[in-house]
């Protein structure tokens, strides 16, 4: 299996084999992160630019650590955004970064499709670090990596994604990735947070969390993305926690060793109870650790794709 893609824009666009290659490569990188010296010279002399149009700490830091452990130089650019902002267009910004002879552009944008626009317009590698409601491929890859590490396989697993399905790029990427690898995905949320047609993407849809969690091997808990829509697009918080919150009480009725995941940041008491977030079933911090290995693998692979071409 060879990696041939210049960019990583989403899991929708990857084959099962490509996803497996990333996961396997990430396993090797995870070993690197356990060493005394956690740094390898693989991307020495390369420059990675983190271009972030949305405030983000964890993803940006994770990409930065990943790039540095590959010996790449890292430049972080945070762009002030507002809908009325006038100024340089996205393509112009991208072309300027390319002119600085950067090699890999990691981009986070509040508009769906912005990384695709950059990838089309630029010769350098573009990695999507989350775009609008569209995709967040590296988050889903690290979720899948963590699941596989914990349970030994993905094929046949029952995975529930609960929460703000409508506005979630993490959810979309997880549906594509998990279903390509043979897991059964169920999305669960109040009706108002279920986007049209999501069932046709390969996920079962339900509004009943207890039903969904029955026989589930893992649950991925999403937060409400209040910043992405009008207040009227969301359910009332207390009501939501009562009906959909992942609580100790709820977990008592399901598989004892169910894996609880969360892409962060956590809103304790809104979508997940504190005791669960910190409890035995939670792998939330392992997800963070695995995120670095997965992002190292992605950066390494897209950089190689470039070399193979050139």
């Amino acid at each position, binding site marked *: 299996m060879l990696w041939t893609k210049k960019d990583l824009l989403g899991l929708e666009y990857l084959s099962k084999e490509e996803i497996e290659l990333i996961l396997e490569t990430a396993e090797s990188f995870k070993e690197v992160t356990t060493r005394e010296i956690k740094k390898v010279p693989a991307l020495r002399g390369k420059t990675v630019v983190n271009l972030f149009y949305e405030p983000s700490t964890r993803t940006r830091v994770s990409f930065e650590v990943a790039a540095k452990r590959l010996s790449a130089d890292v430049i972080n650019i945070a762009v002030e955004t507002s*809908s009325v902002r006038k100024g340089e267009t*996205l*393509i112009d910004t991208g072309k300027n970064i390319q002119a600085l002879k950067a090699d890999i552009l990691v981009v986070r944008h509040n508009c*769906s*499709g912005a990384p695709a626009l950059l990838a089309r317009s630029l010769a350098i590698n573009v990695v999507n670090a989350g775009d609008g*409601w*569209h995709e967040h491929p590296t988050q889903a890859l690290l979720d899948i990596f963590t699941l596989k590490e914990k349970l030994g396989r993905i094929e046949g697993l029952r995975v529930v994604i609960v929460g703000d399905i409508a506005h979630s790029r993490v959810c979309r990427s997880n549906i594509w990735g998990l279903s390509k690898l043979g897991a059964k995905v169920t999305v669960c949320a109040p009706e108002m947070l279920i986007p*049209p*047609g999501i069932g046709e*993407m390969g996920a079962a849809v339900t509004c009943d969390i207890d039903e969904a969690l029955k026989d589930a091997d893992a649950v991925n808990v999403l937060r409400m993305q209040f910043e992405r829509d009008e207040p009227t697009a969301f359910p009332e918080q207390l009501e939501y926690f009562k009906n959909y919150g992942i609580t100790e009480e709820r977990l008592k009725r399901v598989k004892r060793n169910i894996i609880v995941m969360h892409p962060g940041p956590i809103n304790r008491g809104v979508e997940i109870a504190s005791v669960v977030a910190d409890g035995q079933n939670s792998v939330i911090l392992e997800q963070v650790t695995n995120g670095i290995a997965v992002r190292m693998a992605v950066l390494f692979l897209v950089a190689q794709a470039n070399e193979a071409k050139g």
Partner: protein
Amino acid sequence: MKLLIKGGRVIDPANNIDEVLDILAEDGNITRLAKDIDVPGEQTIEAAGKIVMPALVDMHVHLREPGREDKETIKSGTLAALKGGVASVLVMPNTEPAMDSAENIRMLTGLIKNSSYANVYICGAITKGRYGKELTGIAKLKNEGVVAISDDGAAVDNEELLLKALLEAKEHRLPAICHCEDRKLSNKGVMNSGLISTRLGLRGISRESEYKRVERDVSLAERISSPIHITHLSCKESVEIIARAKKKAVKVTCDSAPHYFSLSEEALLDYDTNMKMNPPLRTKEDVTAIKQALKDGTIDAIASDHAPQTINEKEIEFERAEFGVIGLETLLSVSITELVETGILSFSELIKRAALNPAKILKINKGTLSIGADADIAIIDPYKQWTVRKEEIVSRSKNSSFLGRQLKGVVEYTIVNGKIAYPF
């Protein structure tokens, strides 16, 4: 000034003509239609193997002047029209300033007189500034020569106000053109709502936002038995509502644009902003319904909704990009490729929908080759292929949905008032 067109297949649905004939135009009018006309020494076009037809009448066009001459001007827009075989256009009132007063329309009339290369008709605004608050006074606008009224780009939300406007339009025998969109329902959406919008993570525009408003506007027209024209139909339900109304003899007419019968929402999968328009591209099922409605006559007219936008407004993030695509230069070829080549319409039926019917709806003396009519004629090679290329677009903006597409039917001549206006 005489012009003779010899040996072409003349198609004129107004007179049920479809045969090889010669046409003579004198001083801007058609004067003879017969076999083997011989007028020695006059300008002659040999049209053997070509179709000779009334030039198209495009009843939904944005030429952006005055106000946004960076997108299009009356000159560039009318030249684009000529390249597409279009000799007459109706320009929508959403210019800057809007066409909402006698003064503004006088100004536009002056601009047209100075710089247009084709026939440009003006559509006046229904409400001041197109804000949907206060009527413009249709009598005044008619005095300045508008042939229709519309708030296109915006819908008149206030039912009472629209009712009043329809009554006024009826009194002055002006067609009222309705852009049907309930903005509360379209909710800042950027594409059709459904699986594809969910996959792309884009905010959807529901079908209800269109057809519920079509339903309302049609029932208003029915209530006061006043004519109404619904523009740019995009979905199946809208078609069904119009079909039912027509059965009940409600005076409703409607049009759809080439992109709605040739492209579906799948075209947006790589976030191509040249596929972003309002109403949005819908599903394959809707495309089929629009085609069927064009065949059975539920949809009366084909109009381009030519909406030029600059690169700065299109080569950006999809959500931030402007709605709209250009269409004057591809109107005829897309229609031939998608409707005639596929056996849905005959050439005669296509000409009826793209020339005769719009002229009838606007009550203008166009769209026919009758003796005495204005000599607005298109001569086309119906079987020649061409590829839409950015560099060859005449319009000032290049935002076409059909870039790179191979189309059938090439316009060889466009004649306006008896003069060869294209090739330039």
